[in-house]
């Protein structure tokens, strides 16, 4: 398993919806097959949302194998826990997992979220005002977007690992155990954590399965409970990270003061916000909580429940935001261990320039502009490139052919048929006519 999404070519109808919807233009149709550029894919799952043929799916391991494996630890993204239940109440999904034979380690995970919130708050306080705002690294798709399109914002990233990873580290350190761990993920980006860990060399997750897959089993087997365990209400702060604004609220709670933050969810909002930060227009803001999905992780493409219903359930939780003295002391001890800190730097992903050599890049850019002006500009996608501009860019790099554009193909055919027609109108001096002429001449002589 290398990346977050997989294309089922047998179901794909080459309708081009996916390649045109991709925010990082990571997809092409080449030789009749949808291709994904691993370097550019950020795992947002937009292609999965728009595919009418259900031909694109989140990569995951076999749930059947995972659930039969008794030596496996299973941990879930917070959004998992609000996928079922009557209106306003949350299903006791942790109990369901326990009944399947999986150990409950949610106490460790919940503590890790407290720790992450505390560590982020500390980082905000430690920064000089001109170095703010810090940007959340919780959503792996946002992190990747920054690495790809906003490398200059990397210095704004908060250096705290995913609390899901911290939780496993904490559990391993405390218990000394070393079983394999599987993650129940709400989206391709989270499932990508396994192969592309953020801020660490190796992920704690050995397997990934998506929320929808697990919930389907639990519902079909009548195991999706209806009540939330009391412990979740008491320590439910971490569940709120699945909701837009939940992370900010948790951080503010550990800081003991209000936090000036902007919460942006959905691709367009996130892109706009990052552009504004790049232009230096977000003075006085301390924190940016960005989530690639609408409403936050609840809107993940691999969840099973309506994001609006899971939102209602989360909002109805009676969350205790105040850490008691004992909790705070334990957190400060953990904070001192650096368990939460990035152990590998976040690096910029190479920009896709037209050439490594600036003169060559200029030549190609001029060529690209020339090509672009001759293209129809309707971005139909029939050529297999996501837009006319992307096609011009690919052609300038020497990839693809101009006649992949159906309009250019038609022009070529028109030109050729005009030439053919002109040729047909010519009366060539063929050997046949020459012979007739000669014969005529000879006949004349004979007469």
């Amino acid at each position, binding site marked *: 398993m290398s990346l977050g999404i997989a294309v089922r070519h047998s179901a794909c109808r080459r309708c081009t919806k996916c390649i045109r919807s991709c925010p990082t233009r990571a997809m092409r149709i080449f030789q009749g097959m949808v291709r994904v550029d691993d370097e550019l894919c950020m795992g947002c799952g937009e292609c999965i949302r728009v595919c009418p043929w259900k031909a694109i799916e989140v990569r995951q391991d076999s749930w059947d194998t995972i659930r039969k494996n008794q030596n496996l630890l299973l941990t879930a993204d917070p959004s998992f826990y609000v996928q079922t239940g009557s209106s306003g109440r949350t299903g006791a999904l942790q109990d369901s997992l326990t009944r399947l034979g999986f150990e409950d380690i949610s106490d460790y995970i919940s503590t890790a979220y407290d720790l992450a919130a505390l560590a982020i708050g500390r980082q905000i306080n430690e920064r000089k005002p001109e170095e703010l705002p810090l940007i959340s690294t919780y959503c792996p798709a946002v992190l990747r977007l920054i690495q790809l399109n906003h490398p*200059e914002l990397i210095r704004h990233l908060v250096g705290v690992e995913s609390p899901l990873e911290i939780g496993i580290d904490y559990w391993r350190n405390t218990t000394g155990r070393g079983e394999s761990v599987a993650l129940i993920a709400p989206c391709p980006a989270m499932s990508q954590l396994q192969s592309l860990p953020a801020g660490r060399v190796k992920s704690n997750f050995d397997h990934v399965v998506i929320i929808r897959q697990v919930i389907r089993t639990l519902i079909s087997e009548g195991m999706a409970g209806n009540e939330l365990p009391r412990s979740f209400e008491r320590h439910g702060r971490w569940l709120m990270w699945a909701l837009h604004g939940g992370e900010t609220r948790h951080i503010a709670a550990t800081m003991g003061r209000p936090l000036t933050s902007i919460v942006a969810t959905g691709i367009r909002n996130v892109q706009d916000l990052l*552009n504004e930060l790049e232009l*230096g227009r977000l003075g006085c803001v301390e924190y940016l909580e960005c989530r690639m999905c609408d409403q936050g992780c609840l809107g993940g493409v691999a969840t099973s429940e309506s994001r609006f219903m899971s939102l209602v359930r989360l909002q109805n939780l009676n969350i205790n935001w105040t850490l008691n003295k004992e909790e705070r002391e334990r957190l400060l001890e953990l904070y001192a261990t650096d368990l939460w800190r990035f152990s590998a730097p976040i690096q910029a992903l190479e920009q896709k320039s037209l050439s490594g050599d*600036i003169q060559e890049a200029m030549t190609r850019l001029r060529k690209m502009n020339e090509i672009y002006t001759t293209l129809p500009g309707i971005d139909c996608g029939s050529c297999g490139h996501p837009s006319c501009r992307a096609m011009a860019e690919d052609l300038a790099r020497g990839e693809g052919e101009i006649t992949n554009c159906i309009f250019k193909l038609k022009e070529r055919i028109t030109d050729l048929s005009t030439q053919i027609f002109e040729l047909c109108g010519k009366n060539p001096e063929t050997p046949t006519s020459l012979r007739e002429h000669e014969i005529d001449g000879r006949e004349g002589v004979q007469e």
Partner: protein
Amino acid sequence: MSSAYVESYVVDGNELVAIGEASTKIKAVLKMLGISSDLIRRAAIVAYEAEMNLVIHGGGGSMSLEVGPGSIKILAVDTGPGIPDINKAMTEGFSTASDKIREMGFGAGMGLPNIKRNSDNFELTSEVGKGTTLKSEILLQKT
């Protein structure tokens, strides 16, 4: 042979919603040319602030980008009211923007100082009643 790459853009003074269009294009061009991200960031700030000045004060105008050899040059020209006192205009916080503009979150008086801070060479010429010309140069390699 070393030659410059030039592109120009028309900035419509009546289109407040389209602010940022030219600077977005400039950023995309620089990215494709493989310019380093720090220089792109500086050029994007210069272009954006210059574009805003064209819309807010200049009543529209034209912008151009020239890349190479050795530097990125951004030029913004308008035929608007002009700046009576350039020194005053360069003061941080000084602004003549209307209330309408301020309500939109612009006009904090940081534009010109911001452009200057991000440029290696900066030139501002203006004549009241005629217009304003802004030239900014960012060196590709600092000597």
